[in-house]
């Protein structure tokens, strides 16, 4: 290539990073702005879009916290998500340890089975759970929903703890075992303390996954187990009350807090989860 052909190329090329940066910023805006647009609306009197400072009010939040139906839905969601994420964490940590270090037949099959709910369309799982609940008479029960959401959150915990396990030096476990510690003792005293961050991140994301989950909760709901997303879904569908703006704002802030917490802990769960999806 001669210098003359390289030169105009250089000038065009210099523009490439800038053009792609501009595009990238537009896409960031496309990703972030929708959730932000909801915030000023939630702070208006009756759900209209306004930047008028004089008309800011907490009216919609007052409506939310004054409504028995919304509070019941929020309370249900908190209970289900807490129970389901604790269950998923308790089951998921030892499972991830077994997947990383164990030697038993069918290990990779079991691992695939535990992770696969992440890759199967939720609607298919929800339909199956609906049939199962109908066949066993467990429809609309709190326990059913908790178990279903524990299954749904389990892959998140397992993925995060598995990626945490790559940072754990197997030599420490071997040393403990050589000195006569049982596998259970090695797990509790040597491995668990090193996994604190992954475990906490796994718990957080299992919680958020359950708290935001609509489809399974929609199929399994009964009069007493309507969760916040289910209530929100049917509200948007049938009445479209401005209170939804207030709920959306709170949910966005929750997601933001959870992500920030996870990033501060040094975990990058989204990347892990999405990479697993490859």
């Amino acid at each position, binding site marked *: *290539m001669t*210098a003359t052909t*390289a030169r105009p*190329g*250089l000038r*065009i*090329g210099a523009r*490439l990073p800038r053009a792609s940066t501009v595009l*990238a*910023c537009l896409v*960031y805006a*496309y990703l*972030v702005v929708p*959730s932000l*647009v*909801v915030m000023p609306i939630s702070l208006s009197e009756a759900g209209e*879009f306004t930047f008028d400072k004089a008309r800011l009010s907490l009216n919609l939040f007052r409506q939310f916290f004054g409504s028995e139906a919304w509070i019941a839905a929020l309370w249900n969601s908190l209970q289900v998500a807490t129970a389901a994420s604790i269950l998923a964490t*308790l*089951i998921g940590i*030892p499972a991830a*340890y077994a997947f990383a270090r*164990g*030697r*038993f037949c069918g290990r990779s099959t*079991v691992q695939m*089975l*535990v992770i696969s*709910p992440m*890759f*199967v*369309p939720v*609607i*298919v*799982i929800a339909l*199956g759970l609906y*049939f*199962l609940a109908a066949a066993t008479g467990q429809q609309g029960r709190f326990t059913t929903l908790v178990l279903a959401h*524990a*299954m749904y959150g*389990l892959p998140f915990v*397992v993925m995060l703890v598995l990626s945490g396990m790559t940072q754990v030096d197997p030599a420490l476990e*071997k040393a403990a075992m*050589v000195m006569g510690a049982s596998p259970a003792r090695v*797990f509790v005293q040597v491995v668990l303390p090193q996994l604190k961050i992954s475990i906490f991140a796994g718990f957080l994301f299992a919680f*958020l996954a359950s708290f*935001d989950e609509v*489809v399974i909760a929609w*199929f399994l709901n009964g009069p007493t187990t309507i969760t916040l*997303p289910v209530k*929100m879904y049917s509200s948007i*569908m049938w009445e479209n009350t401005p209170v*939804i703006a207030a709920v959306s704002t709170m*949910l966005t802030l929750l*997601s933001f807090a959870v992500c920030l917490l996870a*990033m501060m802990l040094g975990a990058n769960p*989204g*990347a892990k989860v*999405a990479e697993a*999806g*490859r």
Partner: protein
Amino acid sequence: MIATRRPELLPSLALFATPAALVALCLFVLPMIFVAAYTVGEERGLLDGVREVAGSNLVFRVFLNTVHISLTTAFVSVLLAYPVALHVMRQKRLWKAVCLTLVLVPFWTSILVKSYAFIVILGERGVINTALRAWGFEGFDMMFNRFAVIVGMSNALIPFAIFPILASLSAQNQSIQAAGEVMGASPMRVFWSITFPQSLPGVLAAFLLCLVLSMGFFVTPALLGGRQDMMMANVIDLYTREVLDWQSASIIALLLLLFCGLLAGAVLKLQLKVGR
């Protein structure tokens, strides 16, 4: 290292995985078996059921909708995700964290919030139309149609597309790019003949991932689309809870599963190739 070969130092740990295996069996595998079992109805056999579903005008239209919306969404998502992945990769430390947060927060925001936001933005009296009217233009019909569904869905799927592309960009050997630059290639040329071709496996993986995920979408088409934009998940819901035809619902669900399985298989095969 000799110690690792001694059998007592290789615990089986099967018991550690048992609770998780039980949960997966009872709450994932068993429901799947139920779906498979319900494809055989009490009055209609499997073949009759399949014939009826295959002959149904509604199901056929919904299937075409699903394919069209999913392909478009996957294409748009990958197209928009690429510059972001490129941008994130170029950032250092703090800015990288900031950019990743900008991607991760929408990734973990409820799909309901995002769908509601687009109702607010695209609606008849939404942000865009209000602004247009305030400036003396006419408003557009942007809601309850395919456009709204694709906008809402690609918004949800872009983060999923970013990570595989980012992974394939970050895995590249930077010295090849440097070599290209040293030899006088313009940044544009370095990008098109070195960076981009090497990132194609990641792009394809992102595309297939988006395709699989979008096939199962439920909330966005229900809230942003019109009757004519129903997708397979919506028709499963319709058959289960309104028509009460559990057999057809199961057959459609298995069809969806089959499709996603084939696509996911393609993703895995690709990953094996990339991971070589």
